[in-house]
């Protein structure tokens, strides 16, 4: 779950990370009031969206006066911001964060991540913090220093000292940076964060270490022990399709094609979408029916696809086994089609447990479908129907 800047800073500040004074605003007046309440000579107005890459996309505006803050807020609020991480549609700015601008002697980069192969947390640090960090780091990974922590987040003093050397932290600022790093690790571990990024981590001319921008990604699997994030979790799912799917034990990602895909299992889902693309088609979604999903829940997923006018055909690819058996999916299709006026053709491919039974359900209930013997044949038929060459 992605935690936007203002919330990430709130969390980090609770553990002792220094952040600039500031606050959230939903309107121009609110933004100006925020600025007036800050004792600062310069302000930053920052669009709050659920993605990074804002700086380079014009989502962060520096303003010299409270009225200039208002003007910047007027431009940002309600606008669609397209960044390298939002996708082509961008995201509408509903909130801005107004904060004091911080004088910078050095712009560093700091991140807490989990290194899966070492099964340990790891710090990433660089002297090249700022909006171009991602690009620079991809071009030249050697600008990033790493430090593995113990599995419980413990840091070895000597190793940490080396890490600070790599960040070229001047002696008078070392204690401040070390304090910020320790607080960041504590915040990450206590909140089940998989990723905390502070970019830039600014060293001020008077040797303070300030987290000027921050984002966090929390582990969705650990939300059960963080009831305080429940409302954040609800806000984080912006797409109604994905929300309804999630409530029904389906993993569902909307894509931009015209072939609706109903599949059990993430691997089979990826494999099916690969085959559609290989056959020259475009999937409308990625779906993975979780093993615990009932036929009623799967039917909700099918209804989502039927409600999308762009979907021309459904490709159903199920491998029965474990708990999800093929007839559960056939029953779900039957249920969804009986409740929908829109009945797009189905290409049905089933294998494994109850495949024969599932095919007989499709036939007996007179669902508009054809069966296919292999996945490749099913994909080819779906692509032909979607492109109008089917019948």
């Amino acid at each position: 779950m992605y935690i936007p800047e203002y919330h990430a800073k709130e969390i980090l500040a609770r553990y002792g990370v220094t952040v600039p004074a500031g606050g959230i605003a939903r309107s121009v007046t609110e933004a100006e009031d925020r600025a007036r309440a800050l004792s600062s000579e310069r302000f930053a107005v920052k669009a709050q969206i659920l993605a990074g890459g804002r700086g380079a996309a014009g989502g962060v505006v520096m303003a010299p006066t409270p009225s200039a803050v208002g003007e910047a807020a007027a431009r940002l609020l309600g606008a669609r911001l397209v960044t390298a991480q939002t996708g082509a549609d961008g995201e509408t700015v509903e909130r801005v964060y107004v904060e004091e601008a911080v004088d910078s002697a050095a712009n560093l980069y700091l991140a807490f991540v989990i290194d899966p192969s070492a099964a340990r947390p790891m710090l990433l640090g660089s002297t090249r913090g700022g909006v171009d960090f991602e690009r620079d780091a991809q071009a030249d990974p050697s600008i990033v220093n790493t430090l593995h922590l113990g599995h419980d987040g413990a840091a070895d003093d000597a190793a940490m000292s080396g890490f600070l050397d790599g960040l070229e932290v001047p002696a008078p600022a070392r204690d401040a940076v070390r304090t910020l790093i320790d607080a960041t690790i504590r915040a990450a571990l206590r909140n089940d964060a998989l990723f905390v990024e502070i970019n830039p981590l600014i060293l001020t001319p008077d040797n303070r270490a300030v987290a000027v921008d921050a984002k966090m990604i929390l582990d969705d699997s650990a939300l059960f022990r963080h009831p305080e994030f429940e409302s954040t979790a609800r806000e984080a799912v912006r797409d109604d399709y994905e929300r309804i799917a999630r409530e029904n034990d389906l993993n569902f990602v909307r894509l931009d094609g015209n072939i609706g895909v109903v599949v059990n299992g993430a691997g089979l889902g990826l494999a099916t979408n690969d085959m559609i693309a290989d056959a020259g088609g475009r999937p409308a979604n990625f779906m993975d029916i979780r093993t615990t999903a009932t036929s009623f829940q799967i039917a909700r997923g099918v209804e989502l696809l039927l409600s999308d006018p762009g979907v021309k055909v459904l490709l159903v690819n199920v491998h029965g086994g474990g708990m999800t058996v093929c007839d559960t999916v056939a029953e779900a299709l039957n249920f969804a089609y009986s409740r929908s006026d829109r009945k797009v053709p189905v290409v049905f491919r089933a294998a494994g447990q109850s495949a024969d039974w599932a095919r007989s359900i499709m036939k007996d209930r007179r669902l508009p479908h054809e069966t296919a013997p292999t996945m490749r044949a099913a994909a080819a038929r779906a692509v032909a129907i979607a492109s109008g060459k089917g019948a």
Partner: protein
Amino acid sequence: MAILIDADTRVIVQGMTGRAGTFYTDLAMRYGTECVGGVRPGKGGTTHIGLPVFNTVAEARDATGANASLILVPPHRAADAMIEAIEAGIGVLVCVTERVPVLDMLRVKAALDGSESVLVGPNSQGVLSPGLCKIGVMSTRDATPGPVGVVSRSASLTSEVVAQTSALGLGQSTTIGIGGDPVHGLGFADALRMFRDDADTRAVVLIGEIGGTEEEAAAEYLAGSDYGKPVIALVVGRHAPAERRMGHAGTLAMLGARSAAQKAQKLADAGVLLAEDADAVAPLVKKALAGD
């Protein structure tokens, strides 16, 4: 013959008295798995579906001689269940539980360090040595004993490959789901090493996907070893959109995660035969074994 588990494996089930535990323990016994007991704190001394229930793994081990455990406990207790089994010296742990918190898995991995236990999972369909032993939740309908080892990140594609290879008259020695979670136990390279040392495995199928670095680790291992058996790989997610919203695409790249195409290329460079899609796996195995 098989790796990890065989006819002599004695299995306890942690979480046996729950709904899933009851269902899958029953199925495993019907398949012929030697299930010797279950663990459920507070229910020690009772019996469930004909098996003795113990309060702790250590008690179950002492009373039954168990050397493997199937872990089917809810996510918030899964890490402690795994650590308990490791501390009790159980040889093979299979954790099916989905959505175990990542930080909990760091604790589990620390407990595994220096132990003799092998962990498969979490979020794994399990391990199956057809005709000998099943520890997991996979379908056994299409599985047949034979020469093909399968190691996979996907339960559904494992079922596909099992059905496809069986249909061509090629059975499986052992199938292993390493699980879909970022921090997990046994990896592709570990499984490949075990399959190499198993005389009855004559070819290995590896089923990978986008994300993580398992495929890269497998490629590195194969490139540096004289493997001696054909390895056939399918890597899915070639056309999956780049991860959206995640503010760490660059960071992931720094940690070494590559696209499906890049993973496939690394495997091909290490001498692996690449299946162009999910329908192409079994024919490729058959061809590789015919020329063997």
